[in-house]
C-alpha cells in the first residue's frame, strides 16, 4: 500500500522511470540492444542535470541495466552523488546501485569513505542501515581500515536493528582488515548474550564463520556456546552452533562426549530436517557413532535422500560396515529419477564393494547400463563399473574371466566415449594376469571377428579403441589362439582400412605376429602348402595398408610386405622359415611401472640436452626420403638389396617400437630392455614385476561362438549364479564338487586363488634426487588465513583500531594549498604567512597532507622475510617540470644473496614510471645492483606526472631471485608508493626579503589548519618538514618558522609553522 503511493508519486515526476524502461525493453524484444543504447544516452543526459531526483532515477535504471549485463562502470561517480543525497529515497537507490556495481577495482570507492562515515553516524537508523548494507557488498581493505572503528561503535548502538547489521558486517571487515579482529573481538563476544535475539544470532553467525576457518582460536568459547545450544530454540542459531561444535571437537575430544546427549535429544525431537541434518553431520564428524542413518533413509523426499546419501558417504570413510548393511537401499537409489541421486549412490557403491558382493553389484550396474537413457549417465556408469572393479589393484576381483567378459560386454555400448578406458583395462588385465591370457585372447579374437559391429560407427564413438587392445592382445599372445588363421583373416578384411590410423598400425604389426604363429603351426604339422597359401594371402591383402594415408600404417605395411615377400621366396625354396619369423617377436614382455621411465636416474656425465650429433642441416634432411619417393623407389630396388634394407628397417622399427612401448604403461617391455645398459643402477632393478601364479589354470573349453553375444551373456549370468550357489554350498560342505568340470574349476580357482591372484601394484617410487612437488600446497591467497589470530591474548596497547582524529582537518586541508593551485593554475600559491601578520593569535598554519606523509613514511618500510624496502624520498626533478625521482632503499634482511631485482609499478593516468624506450608498460625496470646478505643500497626511479595537485597512490611489485645453497627461488614483494603533494616540491632556498615581497604581492592564497598531538621538539619537526617535504627555512623566531618551497611547475608555497604552547604541542 505504502509502496503504491510511493510509486505513484514517482510516476508523476519523471518522463521515463524504471517501469517505463522495463516495459520498453519488453516491447523491443527484437532490437533490444539498440533500444538500450538509446536509453543509456538518455540516462547520460539525465545524469548531467542538477536535479538529484532525476539523477536518482537514472541511477536506478542503470542498476537494472547492470543486471542485464551492460557495463555501467562509467557512472560510478554519479552513483556516489546519489549516495550522498540527504534524502533517504535517493540515498537508498544510490547505495543499492553501489552495492550492485562497485567492486574492489572501482577507483572512486575511496571517495565514499567520508560519506559512509557520515551516514553511519546519522540519527536516522535507516540511513545507517542502508549504509551498512551497502558497505557489506563493496567493502575494500581501505574502507575496512578506515571505518572499522565506526562500525565497532555501532555494535553497541541503542537500536537492535543497527546492532545486528553492525555485528554481521564486522565479519566482512575482518576478512578485509584482519588487524581489526583482536580489538573488536571482546565486543563481538559480548553480543553473544545480547538481549535481542536478532543481534545474538548475528553474533553467533559471525563467530561461527570465523571459528570454522580457524577453530583452535575459539576453543575457549565452547562453554558459552554450549550454554547457548541448550537454551536456544531458534533453529537457525542452533544449526550454526552445532556446525561450530563440529569444527571444535576434533581439537578437543572431551567435547564430543558432552555433545552426544544434547545432539541425540535434538535428533529425536526436532521436526526441522535442516537441523536434523546438521546434527547428523556433526555427530558423524564428532562421535563416530552411527545410530541415525536409518531415520534419514526412511524419508522419501528427494532432497533428503540426496543428503542422506551424502551423509552416508561420510560415514563410509570411517565405518564401512555399517553402510554396507544398507546396500539394498542404495541400490534402490540407482532407480531414482534424479540423476544426482543416482550418481551419489554410485559413489557410495564404489566404497562398498567387497570380494563377496562385487559381482552382484556390477551385475546390477550392468542392468542399469542397458536401461540408461542419457549418454552422460551411461558413461558415468561405465567408468564407475571399471573403477569399482579395478580399484586397489583389482583387489576385489576373484574371477578375471568374469571381468574380461564384462569388459567385452561393455564394448557393445553405443556412443560411449570411454573406448579408450575399456581398451586400457583389457590390456592391463591381459598383461598382468598371466593365467587369464588364454581366455582373453579367445574373447579378443571374437571381438576382432565382429569388428564390423564396433567399427560401423567409427565417427561417432570411441569404442573402436578396444580393437586396438584386441589386436594387440591377439598378436602378442597368439600362442593361445585356437585358430590364428581365422583371426588373421579377420584382421586383414578390407573394412579394417576405415579404422583410425593408430589402430590400423597395430593391426598390421600384429598381423605379422599372427602370421608367425600360423606358420609355426603349419610347419610343425608339415602342411607346407597351407603355409604358403597363408603367405600368399598376406601378400595379397597387405597392399591395402600400403596405400593408407596414415604414415605409420603405410610404413609398417610396406616394410612387412617386403618381409613377407622374402619369406615367400624362401618358402619357394622349401626352407622352413617359421622359427626365424617367430624369432622376430621372441621374448617375454613384462609390465613396467607407469613412472618407471621417469625414475631412471640420469647417469653421471650424461647431458641429455646436448646434441649427440651436429644439429641436422638441411641437406641431411633431404637424405631422408619422403614417403611418396620411397614408394616410387621401391620397385627399382633389386631383391638382395631389398632384404638387407628390410632387415635394417625392421631392426630400426623394432627399436622404435620398444621405445614406444617403454613409454606406454600398458605395454610390456621385452627383457632386453632399452635400459639394459643402466642395469647396475638401482632404479630399474627395483621396479616390481608382476608375478602371478595360479594354482588352477582358468581354461574354459568350448567358448561360445563370437556372434552370439546374447547367448554369451545369458550363459555368463547362469554361470555366475551357479558359481554363487557353488560358493554357498562350498561353505556348507567343503568338498562338494560340481558335475561340470569347468564350473568346479571356476569355483576352485575363486576360492583358492583369491590371495594368490592379487595383482602386485607397481609402487610409485621416486628417484632419490626427485624434488618434492607438493610445496605449492600453501594457498597464500586464502583470505581466511589472515584471520588466524589468537584471540585469548589480552589486548596490547598498540592494538587499537585506527582512529583518524586528524582526518577532518585533513579534508579541510585538501581544499587548501594544493587543490587551489588547480584553480589558479599559474598564480603563485597562497601563503599562511599572512596569518602571521594579520592574526597573531591564530594558532597554527600547517600544510595539509603533511602529517599523512610522515605517517606514510613510517608505514612504508615493510618487513618481508627477505627484503626490506623503504621509500625514503620522492623528489621533483629540477631539470624537468614534469618528473619526480623516487629514491628507494633496498635492504637485504636474510642470509641469502638477492639478485635480478625488477621494480615495476602499475601506471596511473597521471603518474607513469619512465621506462627505457621500447619497453611496454608491463615491463619492470631492473634494479642496477645485487644485494649480498645484510647489505642495503639505494635505487632511483623516475616518474612523469601530469598534474601535481593531487596525491597519488601507486601499486607496484618488486620481483627478485633469492639465491640459496640449494637453488634459487623467485620472490615477489608488493608495495604501494604514496605521492603526496609535497612530493612535487623542490627545495629552493629563499631570502627573507624575496619572501616578504612574495607575501606582499597579494598573489598568494591563504589557508590555515591546526594539528594536535604532535609530540616532538620544534626543531625536529622543522627538520622533518624540510627533509620529507622539501621546504627550506626562511626565518625562524622562537617557536615560529617561515618556510618556503617551490613546486616542479613553479608554484610558490609558503608555510608558517607555529608551535602554540611549547613544548608539548609543537606545530
Amino acid at each position, binding site marked *: 500500500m*505504502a*509502496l503504491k*503511493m*510511493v*510509486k505513484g*508519486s*514517482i510516476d508523476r*515526476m519523471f518522463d521515463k522511470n*524504471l*517501469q517505463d524502461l*522495463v516495459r520498453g525493453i519488453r516491447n523491443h524484444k527484437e532490437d533490444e540492444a539498440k533500444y538500450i543504447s538509446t536509453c543509456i544516452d538518455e540516462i547520460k543526459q539525465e545524469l548531467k542535470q542538477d536535479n538529484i*531526483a532525476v539523477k536518482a532515477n537514472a541511477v*536506478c535504471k542503470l*542498476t537494472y541495466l547492470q*543486471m542485464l*549485463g551492460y*557495463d555501467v*562502470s562509467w557512472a560510478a561517480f554519479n552513483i556516489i552523488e546519489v549516495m550522498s543525497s540527504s*534524502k*533517504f*529515497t535517493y540515498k*537508498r537507490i544510490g547505495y*543499492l546501485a553501489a552495492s*550492485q556495481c562497485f*567492486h574492489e*577495482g572501482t577507483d572512486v570507492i575511496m571517495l565514499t569513505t567520508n560519506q559512509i562515515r557520515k551516514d553511519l553516524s546519522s540519527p536516522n537508523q*535507516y540511513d545507517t*542501515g542502508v549504509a551498512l*548494507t551497502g558497505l*557489506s*557488498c563493496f567493502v575494500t581493505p581501505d574502507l575496512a581500515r578506515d571505518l572499522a572503528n565506526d562500525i565497532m561503535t555501532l555494535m553497541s548502538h541503542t537500536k537492535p*536493528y543497527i546492532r*545486528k*547489521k553492525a555485528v*554481521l558486517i564486522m*565479519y566482512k571487515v575482518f576478512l578485509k582488515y584482519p588487524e581489526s579482529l583482536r580489538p573488536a573481538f571482546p565486543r563481538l563476544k559480548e553480543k553473544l548474550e545480547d538481549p535481542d*535475539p*536478532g543481534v545474538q*544470532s*548475528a553474533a553467533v*553467525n*559471525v563467530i561461527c*564463520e570465523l571459528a570454522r576457518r580457524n577453530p583452535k582460536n575459539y576453543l575457549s568459547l565452547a562453554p558459552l556456546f554450549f550454554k547457548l545450544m541448550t537454551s536456544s530454540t*531458534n533453529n*537457525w542459531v542452533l*544449526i550454526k552452533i552445532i556446525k561450530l561444535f563440529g569444527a571444535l571437537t576434533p581439537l578437543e575430544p572431551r567435547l564430543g562426549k558432552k555433545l552426544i546427549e544434547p545432539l541425540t535429544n535434538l535428533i529425536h525431537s526436532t521436526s526441522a*530436517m*535442516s537441523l536434523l*541434518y*546438521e546434527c547428523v*553431520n556433526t555427530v558423524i564428524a564428532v562421535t563416530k557413532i552411527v545410530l541415525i542413518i536409518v531415520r534419514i533413509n526412511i524419508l522419501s523426499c*528427494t*532432497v533428503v535422500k*540426496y*543428503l542422506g546419501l551424502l551423509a552416508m558417504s561420510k560415514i563410509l570413510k570411517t565405518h564401512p560396515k555399517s553402510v554396507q548393511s544398507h546396500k539394498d537401499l542404495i541400490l534402490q537409489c540407482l532407480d531414482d*529419477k*534424479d*540423476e*544426482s*541421486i543416482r550418481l551419489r549412490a554410485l559413489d557410495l557403491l564404489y566404497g562398498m564393494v567387497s570380494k563377496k558382493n562385487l559381482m552382484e553389484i556390477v551385475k546390477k550396474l550392468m542392468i542399469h547400463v542397458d536401461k540408461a537413457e542419457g549418454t552422460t549417465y551411461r558413461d558415468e556408469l561405465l567408468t564407475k563399473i571399471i573403477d569399482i572393479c579395478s580399484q586397489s589393484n583389482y583387489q576385489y576381483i576373484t574371477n578375471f574371466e568374469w571381468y574380461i567378459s564384462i569388459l567385452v560386454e561393455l564394448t557393445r555400448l553405443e556412443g560411449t566415449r570411454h573406448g579408450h578406458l575399456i581398451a586400457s583395462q583389457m590390456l592391463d588385465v591381459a598383461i598382468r594376469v598371466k593365467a587369464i591370457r588364454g581366455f582373453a585372447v579367445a574373447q579378443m579374437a571374437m571381438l576382432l571377428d565382429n569388428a564390423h559391429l564396433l567399427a560401423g560407427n567409427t565417427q561417432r564413438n570411441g569404442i573402436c579403441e578396444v580393437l586396438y587392445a584386441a589386436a594387440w592382445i591377439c598378436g602378442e599372445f597368439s600362442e593361445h589362439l585356437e585358430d590364428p588363421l581365422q583371426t588373421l583373416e579377420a584382421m586383414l578384411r578390407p573394412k579394417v582400412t576405415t579404422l583410425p590410423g593408430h589402430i590400423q598400425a597395430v593391426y598390421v604389426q600384429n598381423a605379422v605376429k599372427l602370421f608367425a604363429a600360423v606358420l609355426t603351426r603349419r610347419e610343425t604339422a608339415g602342411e607346407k602348402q597351407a603355409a604358403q597359401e597363408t603367405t600368399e594371402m598376406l601378400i595379397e591383402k597387405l597392399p591395402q595398408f600400403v596405400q593408407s594415408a596414415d604414415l605409420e600404417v603405410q610404413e609398417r605395411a610396406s616394410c612387412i610386405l617386403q618381409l613377407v615377400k622374402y619369406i615367400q621366396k624362401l618358402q619357394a625354396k622349401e626352407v622352413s622359415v617359421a622359427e626365424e619369423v617367430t624369432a622376430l617377436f621372441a621374448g617375454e614382455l613384462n609390465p613396467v611401472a607407469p613412472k618407471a621411465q621417469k625414475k631412471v636416474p640420469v647417469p653421471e656425465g650424461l647431458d641429455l640436452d646436448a646434441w649427440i650429433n651436429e644439429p641436422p642441416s638441411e641437406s641431411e634432411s633431404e637424405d631422408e626420403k619422403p614417403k611418396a619417393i620411397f614408394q616410387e623407389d621401391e620397385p627399382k630396388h633389386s631383391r638382395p638389396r631389398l632384404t638387407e634394407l628390410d632387415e635394417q628397417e625392421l631392426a630400426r622399427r623394432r627399436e622404435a617400437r620398444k621405445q614406444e612401448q617403454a613409454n606406454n604403461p600398458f605395454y610390456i617391455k621385452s627383457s632386453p630392455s632399452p635400459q639394459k645398459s643402466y642395469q647396475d643402477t638401482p632404479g630399474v632393478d627395483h621396479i616390481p614385476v608382476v608375478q602371478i601364479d595360479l594354482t588352477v589354470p582358468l581354461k574354459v573349453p568350448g567358448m561360445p561362438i563370437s556372434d552370439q553375444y546374447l547367448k554369451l551373456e545369458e550363459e555368463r549370468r547362469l554361470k555366475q549364479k551357479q558359481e554363487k550357489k557353488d560358493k554357498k554350498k562350498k561353505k556348507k560342505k567343503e568338498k562338494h564338487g560340481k558335475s561340470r568340470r569347468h564350473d568346479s574349476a571356476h569355483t576352485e580357482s575363486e576360492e583358492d586363488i583369491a590371495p594368490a591372484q592379487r595383482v602386485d601394484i607397481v609402487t610409485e617410487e621416486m628417484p632419490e634426487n626427485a624434488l618434492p612437488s607438493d610445496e605449492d600446497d600453501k594457498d597464500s591467497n586464502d583470505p581466511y588465513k589472515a584471520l588466524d589470530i589468537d584471540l585469548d591474548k589480552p589486548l596490547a596497547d598498540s592494538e587499537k583500531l585506527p582512529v583518524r582524529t586528524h582526518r577532518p582537518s585533513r579534508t579541510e586541508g585538501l581544499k587548501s594549498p594544493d587543490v587551489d593551485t588547480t584553480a589558479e593554475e599559474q598564480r603563485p600559491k597562497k601563503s599562511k604567512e599572512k596569518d602571521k601578520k594579520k592574526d597573531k593569535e591564530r594558532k597554527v598554519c600547517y600544510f595539509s597532507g603533511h602529517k599523512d606523509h610522515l605517517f606514510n613514511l613510517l608505514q612504508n618500510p615493510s618487513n618481508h622475510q627477505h627484503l626490506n624496502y623503504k621509500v625514503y624520498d620522492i623528489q621533483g626533478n629540477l631539470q624537468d617540470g614534469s618528473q619526480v625521482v623516487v629514491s628507494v632503499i633496498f635492504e637485504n634482511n636474510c642470509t641469502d644473496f638477492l639478485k635480478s631485482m625488477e621494480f615495476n609499478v602499475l601506471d596511473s593516468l597521471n603518474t607513469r614510471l619512465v621506462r627505457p624506450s621500447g619497453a611496454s608498460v608491463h615491463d619492470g625496470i631492473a634494479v642496477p645492483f645485487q644485494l649480498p646478505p645484510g647489505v642495503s643500497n639505494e635505487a632511483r626511479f623516475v616518474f612523469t606526472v601530469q598534474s601535481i595537485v593531487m596525491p597519488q597512490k601507486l601499486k607496484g611489485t618488486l620481483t627478485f631471485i633469492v639465491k640459496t645453497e640449494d637453488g634459487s627461488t623467485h620472490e615477489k614483494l608488493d608495495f604501494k608508493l604514496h605521492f603526496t603533494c609535497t612530493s612535487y616540491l623542490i627545495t629552493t632556498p629563499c631570502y627573507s626579503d624575496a619572501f616578504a615581497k612574495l607575501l606582499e604581492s597579494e598573489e598568494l592564497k591563504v589557508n590555515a589548519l591546526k594539528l594536535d598531538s604532535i609530540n616532538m621538539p620544534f626543531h625536529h619537526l622543522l627538520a622533518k618538514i624540510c627533509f620529507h617535504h622539501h621546504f627550506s627555512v626562511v626565518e625562524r623566531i622562537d617557536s615560529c618558522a617561515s618556510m618556503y618551497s617551490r613546486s616542479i611547475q613553479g608554484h610558490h608555497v609558503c608555510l608558517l609553522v607555529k608551535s602554540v604552547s611549547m613544548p608539548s604541542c609543537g606545530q
Partner: protein
Amino acid sequence: MQFMLLFSRQGKLRLQKWYVPLSDKEKKKITRELVQTVLARKPKMCSFLEWRDLKIVYKRYASLYFCCAIEDQDNELITLEIIHRYVELLDKYFGSVCELDIIFNFEKAYFILDEFLLGGEAQETSKKNVLKAIEQADLLQEVRMTCCEQWGEI
C-alpha cells in the same frame, strides 16, 4: 553464501546479489553457466548440485528459479529454508508475488533481500521484523516524497 541469483525459466536474470568480490566478467560467466545447468535439470531432480568447489541450492517457484551458491561445509537445507523465507517475504510484501512484481520493483526486491541477508549471512530470522523494517523505510521514503512534491508545487 557466496551469491544469490533469480532467473526466469527463459534464462533471463531477474535479480543477482554477490557476497564475494568478483569482476563483472566473472559474474557474467558464472551466471551464464549456472543458468544453463539449472535450467537443464528436470523438475523431479534434487535441488542440490555440486558445481566447481561450491554447492548450488536452487528451487523453482512458479516461473522463477531461486539459486544460491554455498560453500562446502554449509548446510543445504538451511539454504533452501532461506530461499523459502525470502519468497515468503516477497509474497507478504507484494501480496502474492509474481515474476512481474520483481521485474518492475526490482529495487524493492533488493531492499527486502538486504534486510533479510547481510554479507551472505541471515540477518533477521523473524519475518515480522524484516517487513516492519521495510515498511518503515518505505514510509520514510514516502514522507520525504510528499514533502518534496509539495515543495515542487510551491
